[in-house]
């Protein structure tokens, strides 16, 4: 004796957010039922396992049928098959495109290709996120990437328009797309302490200051590709370290300003030249794609780690970077103020964001 067929269809599609989350997380029906039972829904309604099973199956089926529509969220508002109130639609989309930080950290900066997709098993094993959920998240990244890749106009707005996501989520996706496009290295062990949100912040900085779109906002790929001309100009900054006078002048300006304001003054003074060389060298190398990819690892290795080993606090770092940036402007023989500011503003905020345990 068995239930052969069991369906429930409402004129307004009934969706339980909790069950939706189980589905998104890649639970099987049985696992979801188990978790729901433990959650105590049963006692409240004196429902039996059968009732829960039937309800869960029904909803999973509904979500499956909706999934096709969620791939192009704009369709969800126009389709006739499911009558879903607008606020529920928003919820469905937002949750569908939401991702796990643990997962995105694994994929961030990798090429969204078939090769990476094959590695999802490993990621799943490592993060404890079900393979099904990994696939969904990966496919979401890829889908968004493909759609916005060829669009003109600001990245975040494009994502928002095509996928109807909230501002926050659209920004995160912009970061993912940006990282995937530039293939920034994020997976090295030294970078493990950085969260997705750290990188997303940096991506935001880079997008709004270093890309083509930062100067001209109607170019294809404007927000995805870095401004080549700008990268070329960065070479000119080398004068700051190659010209001995300039370097000394720079150092003394910064030291004068900071004296007495920080506990790590001595360390700063001793390391000034190393740090300055590191920052300028990073800038000068950015014409190489390979070095662009290593931007974050370089920042960590060459700047953050030395500071940390000298026990600088973030306030110290902030103080240093502020005076370091500002005093370069006052150097008489330094003529690349514009490029310098465009470079240092981003570097400064990125380092400050990344400077934590």
């Amino acid at each position, binding site marked *: *004796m*068995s*239930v*052969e*067929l*069991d*369906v*429930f*269809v*409402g*004129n*307004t*599609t*009934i969706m339980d957010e909790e069950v939706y989350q189980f589905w998104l997380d890649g639970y099987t029906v049985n696992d979801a039922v188990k978790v729901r039972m433990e959650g105590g829904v049963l006692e*409240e*309604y*004196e*429902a*039996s396992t*059968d*009732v*829960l099973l*039937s*309800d869960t*199956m*029904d909803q999973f*089926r*509904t979500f*499956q*049928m909706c999934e096709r529509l969620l791939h192009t969220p704009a*369709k969800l*508002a*126009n*389709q*006739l*098959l*499911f*009558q879903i*109130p*607008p*606020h529920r*639609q928003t919820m469905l989309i937002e949750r569908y495109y939401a991702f796990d930080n643990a997962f995105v950290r694994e994929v961030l900066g990798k090429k969204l290709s078939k090769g990476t997709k094959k590695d999802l098993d490993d990621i799943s094993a490592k993060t404890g996120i079900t393979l099904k959920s990994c696939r969904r998240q990966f496919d979401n990244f890829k889908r968004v990437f493909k759609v916005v890749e060829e669009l003109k106009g600001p990245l975040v707005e494009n994502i928002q328009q095509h996928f109807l996501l909230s501002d926050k989520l659209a920004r995160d996706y912009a970061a993912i797309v940006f990282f995937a496009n530039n293939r920034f290295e994020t997976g090295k062990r030294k970078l493990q302490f950085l969260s997705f949100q750290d990188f997303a912040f940096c991506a935001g900085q880079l997008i709004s200051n270093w890309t083509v779109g930062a100067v001209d906002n109607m170019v294809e790929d404007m927000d995805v590709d870095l401004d080549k001309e700008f990268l070329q100009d960065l070479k000119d900054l080398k004068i700051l370290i190659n010209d001995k006078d300039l370097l000394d002048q720079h150092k003394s300006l910064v030291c004068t300003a900071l004296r007495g304001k920080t506990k790590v003054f001595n360390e700063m003074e001793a390391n000034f030249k190393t740090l300055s060389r590191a920052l300028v060298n990073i800038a000068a190398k950015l014409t190489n794609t390979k070095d662009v990819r290593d931007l974050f690892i370089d920042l960590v290795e060459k700047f953050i780690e030395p500071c940390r080993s000298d026990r600088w606090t973030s306030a110290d770092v902030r103080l240093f970077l502020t005076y370091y940036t500002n005093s370069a402007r006052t150097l008489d023989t330094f003529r690349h103020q514009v490029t310098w500011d465009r470079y240092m503003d981003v570097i400064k905020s990125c380092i400050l964001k990344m400077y934590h345990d």
Partner: protein
Amino acid sequence: MPGKLKAKIVAGRHLPVMDRASDLTDAFVEVKFGNTTFKTDVCPKSLNPQWNSEWFKFEVDDEDLQDEPLQITVLDHDTYSANDAIGKVYIDIDPLLSCEAATVISGWFPIYDTIHGIRGEINVLVKVDLFNDLNRFRQSSCGVKFFCTTSIPKCYRVVMVHGFVEELVVNEDPEYQWIDRIRTPRASNEARQRLISLMSGELQRKIGLKVLEMGGNAVLGYLQCFDLEGESGLVVRAIGTACTLDKLSSLPTAVLPACNSPSREMKESPLAQAPSHGCRSSHNSPVHSAAAASARLSQGFSVSVPTLIFTGMGSGGSAGKDGGPLKTLLRQQTQSALEQREFPFFTLTCFPPGFLIHVGGVVSARSVKLLDRIHNPDEPETRDAWWEEIRQEIKSHAKALGCHAVVGYSESTSICEEVCILSASGTAAILNPKFMQEGCLDSYSEHRLEDPAPPSCGFCHIPYDELNMPFPAHLTYCYNCRRQKVPDVLFTTIDLPVEATVMGKGSLIQARLCRLKKKAQGEVNATAISNLLPFMEYELHTQLMNKLKLRSMNALFGLRVQISVGENMLVGLASATGVYLMALPAPGGIQIAGKTPSDITYEQHISNMQKKINDTISKNKDLYEVHPQEIIEEVIGSPIPESRQRSRLFRSHSESSDEVSELDLSHGKKDAFVLEIDDTDAVEDIHSLLTDAPMPSGFYSCNTEIMPGIYNWTSSLQMFTSVRVFRLNNVNLTNQGLNKIFNDLCENLLKSLYFKLRSMVPCCLCHLNFAVAVPEEELIQVAVTAVAMTFDKEQAQENFKANMEKAIMKVISENEEQLQFPLELCTETPAPQPFSPSKGTGHQDGGGIHTSARATSVDYSSFADRCSTWIELIKLKAQAIRRGSIKTTASQEKGSPLPEGRSRSLRCMRPFPSSTVSVVKMTPLSFLPGTRIIKYLGIINMFFIRETTSLREEGGVSGFLHCFIAEVFAMVRAHVAALGGNAVVSYSMKECVFMENPNKNQAQCLINVSGDAVIFVRESEAEATAAAPQTSSMQNLSGAAEANA
């Protein structure tokens, strides 16, 4: 050339990819009506084509306009091979043919393919220019309005009720034609869909003609059904109630005080109840001679099983004489008005107050037929004759109950291979003749004021002669007016009348039953089935009765008994809504009697069970807020000597043991219902009584339009359909085992529904409609359609108080100025009536006040009308004093839906973010709470077939059906939206035939749905005028009552 149909194809969207190479589609559209076809240009390489075609014009007869659907086919152009069909849209033109309905059809329609389901959408514009046709002999009936709604549609008034209309058309089923062997499943499905669409168009036109002949302009309670008889053909049949309706141009409050307020109030008013008291003992003639005789029809074999369920407490004797000697002058009158009609049947279930005078009980008839190929589709006489025969039987049953009419009438069939059970049932009633007279009745709503305002209990009074009862019944004086006799239990197929005074809330009551039967062929099979039927009905009835008692209720409304036939079993399901009617005596408890009192353990067992039952009863009393007052009985004394006797269910030989009867006292002095456990069957019965799981708190359920006792609906509602198919793998099942499985199936289904809808609590599942079928051997299918509506608990309290006060005030004032009201009345409703309102009913129902008293069912209002004779007055004095102290829990009655309506609509005004798809509400009820229907756009009647050859890929049978039902909803909504509507009321899924062949990875499903497309507005938007309609109507009513007294 009486009509010009114009269609324009605007655009498409979300089309499927038809060309794999380009991932695009080169779509074009064919528009076909009758034999004319037009094509649009091809819109190359687009999934969202813009055709913006010219207007395609079809010049056609209005007959064709009624029969034919507009057929739109979307195709993918292919230069080298045949064009591929993407899908189709059928548009029923009928709503455009009535000037009052829709004027244009415009909107996005899902493009539907019977194999792939919905594949994109198409935007279409359709218009019709009609020319007047004055030809007397025309075959068309354009302009006749059809309503699925079984009450008087809001925003109309009824000028006259003409009566029963029926028609059926037959054809060969394309699926069984030889050509089906060589054509694709798609072609075959489309042929079927088209044929059924044509047939229902034709059927509607023919019924329309009949209505025009009778002088009417509308059909209410239109019920159309398909019989898929397989090899022997396809029958489409319909019944309805012909009326003359008048549109109320505006809805000024002044004009129809009662109905526009919470327009809902009107609709509930169906009133009739059929006293089916007692166990339907008088099944008088299980397959008796008369039936057998009439059964031998020309074609083959048939057996008719007359099953008259009228009531009667006590063990079943035969009884039934049909001699209901006419009791009153009134009856003679009405009778004559109705006698001219062949079938004085009404498919309506809700009536305006005063329409029903008495209700006799449920009448039903079933007949088993052997199907035979329909040789000549143009002369469907055989089927006609079958139904004719059944209707005659119903008519004579009604007569036997002393009634001249049948209300809440419906017909159904169940087919398995070549055996077909035809069923009809309704409620025998005596109607107010006024409503049948030409011109005497302007509108129910207005005119009820001038009615002799029968007391609220009037419909409960027995219509038959007490000394010559058609069956043994147990009569008492009405607990409300004390003047007329009432049965102790009342069964009806109609909705609860508005004027009925009810205590507490109602409850869904179901009786479920399976009976195994041997597999057989032909006559043997038919005989076996017809032999089983009476026993099934008897048991269903017994179950209903027991469950009713268990809930301390005394009446059933909306009773629907289905018996479905399968190859090796019969499944019976009876659903109804139980209530406690104040006019009927309080039910006694249930008492169990053991057969062998000597055995101690056995006795203990019995007393345990008794205790459980008693506990359940008292729990139920709290749950449904039913607290009958036992005192009443003492004051009144027992009018009928026998009333003290124990009535027994089941053959009982031994008297109940003393111990048990003592327990029984806890339930009052009323007669208890004795259940004897003298065999395992009885144990089973008791067991099943107690296994009905209680509803989770916050939930109520009923199968009628409205839940008695809940009046403060909020506007949030959720219509749903749930289908379950259960496979019985056990080959050796007993009847008991089967019963348990079926019972569990239904209970679990209900539990699932409660769980699903838990977020809506407090809420009531209304119009719970169960449909059972036995699609294959070992399969039981149950399909449920209902609507969950939330209500507001706190509001209820306040309103209730307000109503109470109002009612009391009113009663007082009435008592003081009895004679004034009638005069006032006349000025308010100027249309004088040719018939003197008091004529017939006066002496019978004399001075009832009643509607007003409803809110305070136990208080002085009912007191007032009883005072018409001084003797009673004396009696009542004592009583009144006692009643003063009575708790008032009983009274959240229907007082005024209005105030709730107002606040309700406020809360539902929350703005919705815009979307390109407009929201369409669906409900099986005839109204939407918190709203007013301002326009009926036409009937929706759609038939779809879906088939798949990749069942597994589509998620198995559940995935397949889930998707299909969602698609059907989507198509209904799209059609309603295209007509300009925002809701479907009186929605029902009349057919859901599911067939599967998992081995071949195939499944097929047919669904037929219907309803009325409407435009509603929120009550708050249309409310300015609705000042205090309710009060005034109440006053009018009671005033009228006094006029008479």
